[in-house]
C-alpha cells in the first residue's frame, strides 16, 4: 500500500509538473488538445522535458492563446523548417556550449561542424540542401537520448537507420552509383552482425567504424576507414582488453600487426597496397578466415605462392591435420619478413616441426637439400657481387656482367617463391639457373680483375724494356760522342 501510494504520488507529481511547465506554452496546450501527431510524440521528446517550447523551432508567440497572434508572421512564426534551415535551427542551440550548459547537457557541440565536413554534406539531388539533416537520423518531435533504446541512433537501431538509405540501390544511385548497397546484408553474416542481432550493443555497428556526424569517404586520408587509419579504428575495441573481457578473444592483434611486414608497409611506409585488417577479415562481413580460406585470402596478393602450395604435397597433409595453410609457417598478425631460416633442418626451421630424421623422413631430406641450395645460391651471388664491386673499384668496365647479375637476383627471388612447391626438382631448376649466372658473372669479374693486374704487369715489362733501351742508347750516344 505504501509503495503504490508513493508511486501514485510520483505519477501525479510528474503530471502536475508537466502541467506547470507547460502552463504558459499555449502551442502545446492547443495542439495536444487537437491530438495531432507532432504534439503526441513531443511528450516523450527530450526537448519537451527540458521545457523547450514548440516555438523554439517553429517560431511564433507561445504565450498567446490567440492563434492569430501566436502564429503571426510578425511574431516570428516560421512554420515547418525546410532543408538546411532544419539543421541550422538545431545548431542554434547545439553548437553553442553556453546554451547547452544552461540546459544541463554535457553533449558535444561540434555535430553541425562535423556534419558539414562529412560525405552527407554534399548537395542532395534537389540541389537545395544537404543530403542529411539532423532530423534524418534523429527524427523530430520524439527525439530521445542516444542512450535510450527508443532512439533511432541507439546502437541496436543504427544499422536499420543507415540501411534505410544505404541498402536502397534506387536511392544510392542518385549520389554514388559505384557504392555497393549490400553492406547490411554482409553485416548480418559477420560476427559483429550476428551478435548485434542478438541484442549485443557492444559490438561494432556502422557508426563504430564510420563515425557519426563527420563521416568521410574511404578515399579521404582523414577518414577513420582510410586504409592507413583502419587498423587504429579496429584497434579501438580490439586492443581494449577491458572492453572485450567477456568475448574471450585476444587483444594483441594490433600490437602484432604493427610489427609485421604488412603493418610496417602500411603504417610506416604508407604503402596502401599493403593489407589492413579488412583485407583479410572482410569489412562489413568481418569474420576471421577459416582454416580452408587462409590460403585463398593470402593468395589474393601472394597468388603464385598460393597456387604452388595448392599443387604441393603439403596441401593434402595440411588439410588432413587441419593446419591453417600459410599461417602454420608464417603466423597471422605478426608475419615477419620470411628469412631463409624458415626452410631447412636447423633449429629455427619450420620444417622440423613435422619432419625429422625419424619421422616423415622424405620431407626432412628435401628440406635439407633445399636449404643447401638456397645457401649456395646466396653465397655464389654474394661472391659475384663482391667481385664485381672489386672490379669496379679497380676502374674496370663490368657494366655488362653487372647487368647479368640481375638474373641471379631474379633466380633468388623466384626460388623464394618456388619453395612453396615443396618440390625438390622444380626448386633445383630455378636455383641452378641462378648459380650458373652467378658463376658466369664471377668469371667475368675475375677476368676483369686479372686484366687489371695484366695491365700493370704489362706496363712494368714495357717500362723495363724501355729503360734498358734508354740506358743502352744513352751509353751508345756517349760512345759516339767520345769517338
Amino acid at each position, binding site marked *: 500500500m505504501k509503495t503504490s501510494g508513493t508511486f501514485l504520488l510520483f505519477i501525479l507529481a510528474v503530471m502536475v509538473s508537466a502541467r506547470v511547465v507547460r502552463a504558459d506554452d499555449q502551442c502545446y496546450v492547443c495542439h495536444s488538445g487537437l491530438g495531432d501527431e507532432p504534439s503526441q510524440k513531443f511528450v516523450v521528446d527530450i526537448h519537451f522535458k527540458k521545457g523547450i517550447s514548440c516555438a523554439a523551432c517553429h517560431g511564433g508567440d507561445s504565450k498567446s492563446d490567440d492563434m492569430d497572434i501566436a502564429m503571426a508572421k510578425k511574431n516570428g512564426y516560421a512554420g515547418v523548417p525546410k532543408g538546411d534551415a532544419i539543421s541550422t535551427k538545431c545548431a542554434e542551440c547545439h553548437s553553442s556550449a553556453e546554451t547547452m550548459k544552461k540546459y544541463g547537457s554535457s553533449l558535444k557541440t561540434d555535430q553541425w561542424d562535423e556534419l558539414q565536413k562529412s560525405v552527407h554534406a554534399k548537395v542532395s539531388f534537389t540541389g537545395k540542401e544537404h543530403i542529411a539533416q539532423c532530423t534524418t537520423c534523429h527524427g523530430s518531435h520524439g527525439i530521445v537520448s542516444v542512450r535510450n533504446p527508443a532512439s533511432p541512433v541507439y546502437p541496436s537501431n543504427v544499422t536499420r537507420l543507415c540501411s534505410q538509405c544505404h541498402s536502397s540501390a534506387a536511392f544510392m544511385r542518385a549520389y554514388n552509383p559505384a557504392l555497393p548497397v549490400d553492406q547490411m546484408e554482409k553485416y548480418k553474416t559477420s560476427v559483429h552482425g550476428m551478435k548485434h542481432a542478438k541484442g549485443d550493443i557492444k559490438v561494432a555497428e556502422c557508426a563504430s567504424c564510420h563515425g557519426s556526424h563527420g563521416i568521410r569517404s574511404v578515399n579521404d586520408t582523414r577518414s577513420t576507414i582510410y586504409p592507413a587509419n583502419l587498423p587504429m579504428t579496429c584497434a579501438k575495441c580490439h586492443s581494449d582488453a577491458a572492453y572485450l573481457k567477456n568475448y574471450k578473444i585476444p587483444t594483441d592483434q594490433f600490437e602484432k600487426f604493427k610489427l609485421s611486414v604488412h603493418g610496417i608497409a602500411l603504417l610506416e611506409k604508407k604503402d596502401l597496397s599493403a593489407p589492413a585488417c579488412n583485407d583479410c577479415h572482410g569489412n562489413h562481413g568481418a569474420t576471421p578466415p577459416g582454416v580452408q580460406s587462409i590460403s585463398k585470402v593470402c593468395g589474393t596478393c601472394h597468388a603464385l605462392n598460393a597456387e604452388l602450395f595448392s599443387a604441393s604435397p603439403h596441401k593434402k597433409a595440411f588439410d588432413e591435420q587441419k593446419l591453417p595453410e600459410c599461417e602454420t609457417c608464417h603466423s597471422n598478425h605478426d608475419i615477419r619478413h620470411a628469412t631463409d631460416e624458415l626452410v631447412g633442418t636447423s633449429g629455427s626451421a619450420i620444417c622440423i616441426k613435422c619432419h625429422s630424421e625419424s619421422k616423415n623422413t622424405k620431407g626432412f631430406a628435401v628440406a635439407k637439400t633445399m636449404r643447401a641450395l638456397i645457401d649456395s645460391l646466396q653465397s655464389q651471388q654474394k661472391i659475384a657481387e663482391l667481385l664485381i664491386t672489386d672490379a669496379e673499384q679497380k676502374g674496370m668496365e663490368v657494366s655488362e656482367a653487372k647487368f647479368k647479375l640481375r638474373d641471379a637476383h631474379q633466380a633468388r627471388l623466384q626460388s623464394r617463391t618456388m619453395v612453396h612447391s615443396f618440390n625438390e626438382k622444380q626448386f633445383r631448376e630455378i636455383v641452378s639457373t641462378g648459380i650458373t649466372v652467378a658463376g658466369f658473372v664471377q668469371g667475368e669479374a675475375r677476368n676483369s680483375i686479372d686484366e687489371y693486374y695484366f695491365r700493370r704487369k704489362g706496363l712494368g715489362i714495357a717500362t723495363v724494356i*724501355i729503360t734498358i733501351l734508354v740506358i743502352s742508347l744513352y751509353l751508345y*750516344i756517349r760512345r759516339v760522342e767520345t769517338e
Partner: protein
Amino acid sequence: MNKFSSRVYQWMDERFHLSDAIDFMKKKYVPVHRHSVWYYFGGVSLFLFIIQVVTGILLLMYYKSGEDQAFESIHFIMSKVQFGWLIRSIHSWAANLFILAAMIHMFSVYFERAYRKPRELTWFTGMLMFFVGLTFGFSGYLLPWNELAYFATKVGTDIAGVIPIIGEPMLYFLRGGEDVTGATLSRFFGLHVAVLPAVFTVLLGVHLLFVQIQGMSTPLHMQHLEEHEIKKMPFFPNFVLRDLLLWLIVLNILAILAVYFPWELGRKADPFMPAPAGIKPEWYFLFMFQTLKYIPGHVLFIDGELFGILMFGLGGLLWTMVPIWDRKSAEGKRNKTVTYFGLLIVIFIITLTIVGWLV
C-alpha cells in the same frame, strides 16, 4: 744480321742516294749552349703527332660517328676490344701532351727570337700548325659524345657566334645547324680525321723542310762569335739519337699515364639534360674561358664577350706577326719589347689557367 742490314742499305742507296741525305745531315750541326734543351721540344711535338696519327688510325677501326653510336663505340673500344683502353687513353693523353709540347716549343722559339730573318716562314707555318692543333683538340673532344664534351662544344661554338656579322653564319656552319646535334658530331668527325690531318701534314712537311734547309737557329748572344768558337754537335747521329732517347721516355710516360690515369668516358650526352655543374673546356682553352668570365657585360660600347674575343684575336695576331714587327732582332739587336710582350702573355696565360683550374 748486320750483313743483312748493310745489304739492304746498299740496295736502297744505289737507288735513292741515301748516303747523300745522311752526308747532308752529318754536315748539319746543332749549336750547343745553355738553352740547347729547348731544341728538343720540336722533336717531341713531332713524335706526339706521329703517335696521334697511329693511335687515331687504330681508333678509326672501331669508332662509329653518330649520335646514337659514338659514345657506345668508344665504350665498346674501352671494354671489349683488347688494348682498346690503352689506345684510347694514349690518344687522349698524347693529344694534351702534344699541345703542351707545342706550346713549350713555340715559347722557346719566341724568347730565343728564332723566328727572326731568315726563319719567318718557319714561324708562320709553326703558328698555323699550332692553331690547327688547337682545332684538333676542340673537334676531337666532342667525338666521344659525352656530357662534358657536349656542353663544352656548346659553349665553345657559342663564343664563336658572338663575333659580329660572320659569327652567326659561322656558328651555324660549325654546328651544322642551330644546335649541337648529331650533325655537329659528323662535321667535327670529318674535320678531325680528314681535313685537319691533311692540312697539318702539308704544313708539317713544309716546316720540317725549312728546318732541314736552314738548320737550327743560333741564339742572338752567340751571333757575334766566330764559326769555330761555337760549340756544336752533328745533327746525325748525335742529335737524332738524343731525340730518340727523349721520345722513348715520352712514350713510357704516356704508357704510365694511360694505365694509372685512364681517360674517363663519363656519361653519354643528353641534349635534354640540364648542364652538369663545373663545365670546363680543355685546359689549353681555360685561360680564354676564364677571361671571358671576368670581362664585364659591356666594355665601352661593345659587348663584353665580343670585346674579349676581339682582344684575343688581336693578341693572337700580334703574336703570330712577331717576325714582321720585330725588326731589331732581325738586325741582331736586343729587343726588350718582345721580351716584355712575351712575358706579359705567359704570365697572363699561366695565372688565368691556374685561376680557372681552381675556381
